[in-house]
């Protein structure tokens, strides 16, 4: 279980991106974070694995206090937290294989990994990860020759290499078209069903309804909603997205 307690983030320029946010994520959940652009979704996800240092508050993972971990402990904690990004964040000039293997760096022998030497076992693991996301044939292509959807699958394969206990996904489909969005989210859903907790930020409400087991709504850094997707009625919607907002759908069914 992941427990977020009174999380506050103030950027050096004074922007308060998160204010006193608290919630819990029981194991096995598919938690979706929603909110307008600038509401603090990315900041929240990055405070969990401390890519961004929270200013105040605590993040507990079971009994471990992530916010109090030493730099070395933090590396070990991150090893088990997969992360998927809106812009995929692959090393564009490296092969797909190298990108997938890099998800394993936390486990690897530090010296051999610096020489890009990997045991056969890890290469097999990487191939299996690529098979899971349906692109084993791309293993030795350069990452930037792949389409956006394929690149995001590589991003998921990279996260899979970590044998993650949970996955943070920051708008994983915001750069993709609606059809691809579903195929990517279905991979995450599949992983979730296999027991990996997913914390995912999304923009489109129809995707939220389809995939979320629970939803946290942010507005200007404040948690303004927590509940199931079906509980988001018109009033709640306007509260999260503002008076002028219209519901936009990813797919026009």
């Amino acid at each position: 279980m992941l427990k977020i307690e009174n999380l506050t983030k103030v950027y050096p320029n004074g922007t308060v991106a998160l204010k006193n946010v608290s919630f819990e994520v029981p194991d096995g959940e598919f938690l979706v974070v929603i909110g307008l652009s600038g509401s603090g979704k990315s900041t929240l996800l990055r405070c969990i694995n401390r890519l961004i240092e929270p200013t105040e508050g605590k993040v507990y993972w079971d009994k471990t206090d992530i916010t109090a971990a030493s730099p070395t402990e933090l590396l070990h904690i991150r090893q088990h937290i997969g992360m998927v990004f809106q812009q995929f964040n692959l090393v564009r000039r490296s092969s797909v294989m190298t990108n997938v293997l890099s998800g394993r760096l936390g486990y690897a022998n530090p010296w051999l990994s610096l020489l890009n030497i990997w045991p056969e076992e890890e290469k097999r693991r990487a191939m299996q990860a690529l098979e899971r996301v349906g692109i084993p044939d791309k293993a030795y292509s350069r990452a930037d020759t792949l389409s956006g959807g394929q690149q995001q699958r590589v991003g998921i394969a990279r996260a899979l290499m970590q044998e993650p206990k949970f996955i943070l996904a920051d708008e994983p489909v915001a750069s993709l078209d609606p059809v691809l969005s579903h195929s990517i989210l279905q991979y995450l859903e599949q992983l979730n069903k296999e027991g990996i907790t997913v914390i995912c930020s999304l923009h489109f409400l129809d995707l939220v309804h389809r995939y979320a087991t629970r939803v946290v709504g942010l507005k200007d850094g404040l948690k303004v909603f927590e509940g199931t997707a079906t509980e988001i009625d018109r009033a709640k919607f306007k509260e999260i997205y503002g008076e002028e907002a219209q519901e936009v759908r990813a797919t026009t069914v």
Partner: protein
Amino acid sequence: MDNRPTPGKITLNIILGLLIVAAFAISWRVTDVDFVKLAKNLPNGKDIILAFLTPDFFTHDKTTITIETPFPIPCGSAPEAEIPLSGPRLVPSIMCADPKVKFILEGFNMAPNSDVVVRWNMPDGRVLTAVQATTDAKGHFTSEVESRPIAAAVNGVAAKLAVETLTSIGNLKPSQAAHDVLAAMFVTFFMALLSTTFATIIAAPLSFLAASNVTKRGPVGTTIYYISRSVFNLLRSYDPLVMATIFGFWLSFGSFPGFLALTVVTIASLGKLFSEAVEGIDSGPLEALQATGANRFQVVVYGIIPQVVPNFISFIIYHWDINIRISTIIGFVGGGGIGYYLSQKINLLNYHQAGTAIWAIVIVVWAMDFLSSEVRKRLT
């Protein structure tokens, strides 16, 4: 903002305009600009330009040959000579003569601008000097010869007019200058390569320390960042010529001080280029690698290096190219290589050989330029 002209602004603009005009007037004066002289002295320039344009690349193999023309004295005492129509030859104005007759002897296609001795080779093997002459630029001479009674034919064998001369025998081969220029260019080329390599080995790791996105974290990192940046900037503020002169005095002149000067300058310049390349990378992949629990070194190797390698390589080749040019200039202050050869030849007024060196530099610089643009094309 209010952009309406006010009297104050107009005055300011006029003063600014006058200052610019004054600055140009001063620049003109201190530079001694004299276009009339440039045109008037064109003949002076023409000679050196022509010499540079006719470099000394090739030479013919030379050998000493003896040209002989039988000359019967008196007429009818022996068969007359048959004169070839081309090549090195001696041509008398008459084909035979009675004793004590003066005639004109011409020589063609001898070694140019050289002293020649025309002799009588007598049938009994004795030798007598007939006349001395000097050939012109085309290897031609004309002189007056007398048919000496002592050179009369014996038993139907005429004495021969003979001359020894150098002549080229067909085969073109590289000239001495070409050999020397090649050797000097070799030195320059590899001096530039070695200094670029050394500089890369030192500048590449240092450049990561001088990149804000890698190092500038925490007080220790920030200190390292500013120190390494200052080192690069300090080194950069010294000109290669100054460096070469310092090392030249220190180590006495030669290729090694030239190499050291180039290396120091290259470290500074590549270090700056490299660290800017590192700062310009996409930070997304670094974030992703950090998120997997990769340590700092792993992030550098997996996230940064693949992104900067093409830039690094193109900077290295670009700098190798620059270093060939700089080392040419460094040669003038004693740094060895092609520049030293060139400065020597210019001081000795051997402009054809200087021309050879200049052409060699042009060719190598052009080739390096081509190479670096080809490599850069392939790296994107």
